[in-house]
């Protein structure tokens, strides 16, 4: 082994991998450490508005003050619980709507398939914020939905939809639906349909063949889609703010308000750290499924 190759990180390939690696390390990974560090401080009236981590004599001055605040206050506990519940239910709704859609796209003829795929992608490419705004105008007390229902005489007074949990669920399902459909489609498209045919040839009813063959084979797509909806929805800020009820506390909104309105950077950091800890397992699950999918393609 005389002609030894240079170590990977010192070769040209090392530079190609190293530059984006370093960027993400500095601007994605290190920031979590900084958030954790600031969550150990206490808010002070200074620039920047948090106490130093070490005293003048070098002794450690950090405390779990903010975390105690979070765990003692029922409002914050409710915020985390609501966020996980709203995200979980919304994920289930998008799966119920998204699975049949992905299934139909995967089984369509190539031309129809391309058209339908574009139809799924198009809302995803147009602005998220403007789509939430579209829902807001539709569901307003004077909006089109109420106007129609009043017009055909189903209701006498407008139904209040905005600032309710209903609007929150509609909003999250609506904006996140493409994130559920696309990975499901990718899995179903590559599925070996001859297995389903074999089950049916051997006397399995179509519905049973779906439950026993198609559904288990599409589990990777279900997990990927579910994580793509569940994780960001848990920390969602825009939809609870524009559509949801103000008494349905969600952590994304609490973090925003703590940071921008109360200007308490340390408590906002602790809120972010706890949210991240709650999401570590789902994020790792997502990474495993993604790596498998990439491996299967290669």
């Amino acid at each position, binding site marked *: 082994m005389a002609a030894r190759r240079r170590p*990977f*990180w010192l070769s040209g*390939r*090392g530079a*190609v*991998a190293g530059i*984006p*690696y370093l*960027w*993400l390390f500095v*601007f*994605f*990974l290190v*920031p979590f450490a*900084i958030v954790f560090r*600031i969550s150990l401080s206490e808010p002070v009236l200074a620039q920047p508005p948090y106490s130093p981590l070490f005293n003048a004599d070098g002794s450690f001055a950090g405390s779990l003050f903010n975390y105690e605040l979070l765990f003692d206050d029922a409002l914050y506990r409710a915020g985390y619980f609501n966020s996980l519940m709203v995200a979980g239910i919304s994920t289930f709704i998008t799966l119920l*709507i*998204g699975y*049949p*859609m992905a299934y*139909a796209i995967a089984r369509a003829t190539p031309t129809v398939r*391309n*058209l339908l795929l*574009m*139809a*799924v*992608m*198009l809302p995803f*490419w*147009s*602005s*998220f*914020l*403007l789509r939430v*705004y*579209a829902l807001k*105008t*539709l569901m*307003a007390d*004077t*909006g*089109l939905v*109420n*106007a129609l229902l009043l017009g055909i005489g189903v209701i006498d007074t407008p139904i209040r939809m905005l600032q309710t949990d209903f609007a929150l669920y509609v909003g999250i399902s*609506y904006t996140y639906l*493409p994130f559920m459909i696309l990975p499901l489609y990718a899995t179903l498209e590559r599925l070996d349909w001859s297995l389903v045919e074999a089950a049916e040839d051997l006397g399995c009813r179509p*519905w049973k063949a779906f439950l026993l063959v198609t559904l288990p084979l599409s589990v990777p797509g279900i997990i990927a889609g579910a994580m*793509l909806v569940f994780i*960001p929805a848990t920390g969602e800020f*825009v939809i609870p703010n524009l559509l949801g009820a103000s008494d349905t506390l969600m952590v994304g909104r609490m973090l925003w308000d703590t940071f921008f309105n109360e200007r308490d950077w340390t408590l*906002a950091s602790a809120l*972010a750290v706890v*949210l991240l800890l709650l*999401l570590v397992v789902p994020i790792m699950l*997502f*990474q495993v499924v*993604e*790596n498998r999918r*990439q491996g299967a*393609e290669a």
Partner: protein
Amino acid sequence: MSRTGSRVALYSVVVGGFAFLYLPLIVLVVFSFNASKLVSVWGGWSVEWYAELFRNEQVLSAAWLSIKIAIINATGATLLGTMAGLALSRFGRFGGRLLFTGLIAAPLVMPDVIIGISLLLTFVSMEQLIGWPVGRGVDTILIAHITFSTAYVAVVVQSRASGLDRSIEEAALDLGARPFTAFLLVTLPMLAPALASGWLLAFTLSLDDLVIASFTSGPGSSTLPMVIFSKVRLGVSPDINALATLLIGSVALFAGLATWMQIRRMNRT
């Protein structure tokens, strides 16, 4: 359930699902041409909200700023993301690869509020330590946007590069091309569609981001989503319908063109 019964059930969910995706957008577009200021009362056709939109200096300058940020972000993220995607698809196993795949996958799902606050606090700490970046503004928004956009581009490039036929590159190398020449003349052209869609994806993500930009922007650097958000928060304003229509129209035009070209290419082969 009978076969026809489940067919009917399947297609009604599919039709309902697409209706759910499109009805709000269609209503938004139609009411952008409404003469009345009320969103549920039709007052005849009019383009006055478009005229109002183009008179709104605040919206126009925010839109221009957002487009500039989106272009620089897309270019930077395509560069970094392509390098990352190639590293993951071509370099086999290298030390620290697992962490690298994590750094690519996590930004795709990480809630915006976490990315936003952690980057802002990082910028503040960096300013204290090394004196840069001074304050917050366009450059800090750009760093933040490039960071999450890179991950998306990397995924797009990685999946395309994994699907490429490597024998063509190997042929070039066997015929005496240097690795870099082979990359430039063989691999890069084959990757071009992925680079284009990665660039567009990064452009869109940047143009669409409200939360991360709000955390990392400074005074005088309000992006378009920030201006829209503050308007929408106060209530419904028809000039936002006009803005949305322009955006949806251009996206639809692009997507229609791309699909048409794809279908034509498929029919030819």
